[in-house]
């Protein structure tokens, strides 16, 4: 018995069991750390950015299935994309993760594909932080990579 299918969708468990792009990138790739003080989850995002494109991205860290799967899906979604696209995807994802009204600032036509599977998380407010950890760290990393 369990009503958790909404949260733990198969594609999420797949990314959790077999994370994509797990590992490090050597410098000059940037490395950005993020953590979730409440649950202790930690993540590092490695970014290789040039000419306005995310050439490569990796992540390492410890965390629950949601934080790990979300980070894995994130890397798969942004790799090879232009910075503008990456930002649009991240904005769209964070919209998906809010219970509040959208402010319309992110283009609704950005497609998230598999990542939509994470929308079940919204029903479990405390887990939203897990799902967005990798994404927030990505955004910080982009700022560093461009600086």
């Amino acid at each position, binding site marked *: *018995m*369990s*009503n*958790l299918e909404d*949260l*733990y969708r198969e594609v999420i*468990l797949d990314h959790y069991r077999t994370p994509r792009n797990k590992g490090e990138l050597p410098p000059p790739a940037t490395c950005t750390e993020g953590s979730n003080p*409440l*649950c*202790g*989850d*930690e993540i590092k995002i490695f970014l290789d950015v040039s000419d306005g494109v995310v050439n490569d991205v990796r992540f390492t860290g*410890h*965390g*629950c*299935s*949601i934080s*790990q799967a979300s980070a894995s899906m994130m890397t798969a979604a942004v790799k090879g994309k232009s910075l503008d696209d990456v930002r649009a995807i991240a904005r769209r994802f964070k919209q998906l993760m809010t219970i509040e009204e959208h402010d319309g600032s992110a283009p609704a036509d950005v497609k998230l594909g598999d990542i939509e599977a994470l929308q079940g998380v919204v029903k*479990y407010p405390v*887990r939203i932080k*897990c799902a967005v950890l990798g994404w927030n760290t990505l955004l910080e990393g982009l700022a560093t990579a461009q600086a």
Partner: protein
Amino acid sequence: MSLDIAALRKEFPMLQRQVGGKPIHYLDSANSSHKPNCVIDTMSQFMREGYAPIGRSSYTLASEASTTYEAARAKVAHFINARSPREVVFTKNATESLNLAAQSWGRANLGKGDVVVLTHMEHHANIVPWQMLAAEKSLEIRWVPLTADFQLDLTSLDSILRGAKVFAFTSMSNVLGTINPVRELCDAAHRAGAIAVVDGCQSVPHMTTDVQAWGADMLAFSSHKMCGPTGVGVFWAPEAMLDSMPPFLGGGGMISDVRLDSFTCAELPAKFEAGTPPIVEVIGLGAAVDFLSGIGMSEVRRHEIELTNYAYRALKDRYGDDITIHGATNPELRGATFSFAFRGVHPHDVSQVLDQHNVYVRAGHHCAKPLMRLIGANATARASMYLYSDENDVDALVDALDDVSSIF
């Protein structure tokens, strides 16, 4: 079992609550306990029939309220075997009590290079106040390490304590349930010339407390973990100690006189109770102490030992090596609180699945990050029981873990 747990549970309205049409299994009592009817009723009855400001006003109702308030102080004093109610200071929680220790005694008595000794199993509430003071005063903090099974490693305690001024330690780990030898640790502190500050948050609600037998110099604990209301904690120290300490918070109630250029302090314990105290909450705590005393702390302890035994066997019988229970295995040496790792599944996922079964455990670092680093995890799942917990709660936990296996 000599306690009639079924009858006892009826006293706790929260335990009757259902979620999704099913009973709940509350296994987070180390975090905060539920409140029996007598506590809830005492508080609301007082607000309905007896409320008045205490201490400052002198009309009938105010003096009645003061008497009720002071009676609660006497109950608490008796509960921990203090020499006098004047040794009992009410704070807002154990955290404030420990900050009081560091800020009042510490700031007055510690200087550059002085040593404060903590243990690797402390709660942040017994770490951060000392770190704040250490940063301000350039103190050295030393740590008592743990053995491989997460007991305090006392082999070099005396040398760690050498020259120390403060030894602050928990009487029971909130993560592992480990019960520490408080008397022995106080003695070691005194041999080294240090004061012994006991964080009693986890032991005071669960077993007999005797500050005189311990020989402790300070004790901190919270009402909300011992069937009492939120919003009130206790700081205890002998009168001579309290007398020697400067005030912590300044304001009404703690002064004897205020002039433009100076103030003088009031007598004990008012000196440490600035502002309007948590009047209703202190009176509620008094009711909680009556409730616990009525049951008897040794009965509480006995029940929790039996339940810990039962839980161990049930978990190990079903899951064997798939479950790791951190810390001591002998239930006589521990409280009814245990952190566990289950089949490599992240504690957050464990607790999420358990939640679906109305089994409420806490997943996280339990405000003990240094200990987490030793355990080698960012987080653990923790089940913690109390006098109202029963074998059903344990069985529900054991069964619900099956679902964790099936998902992950």
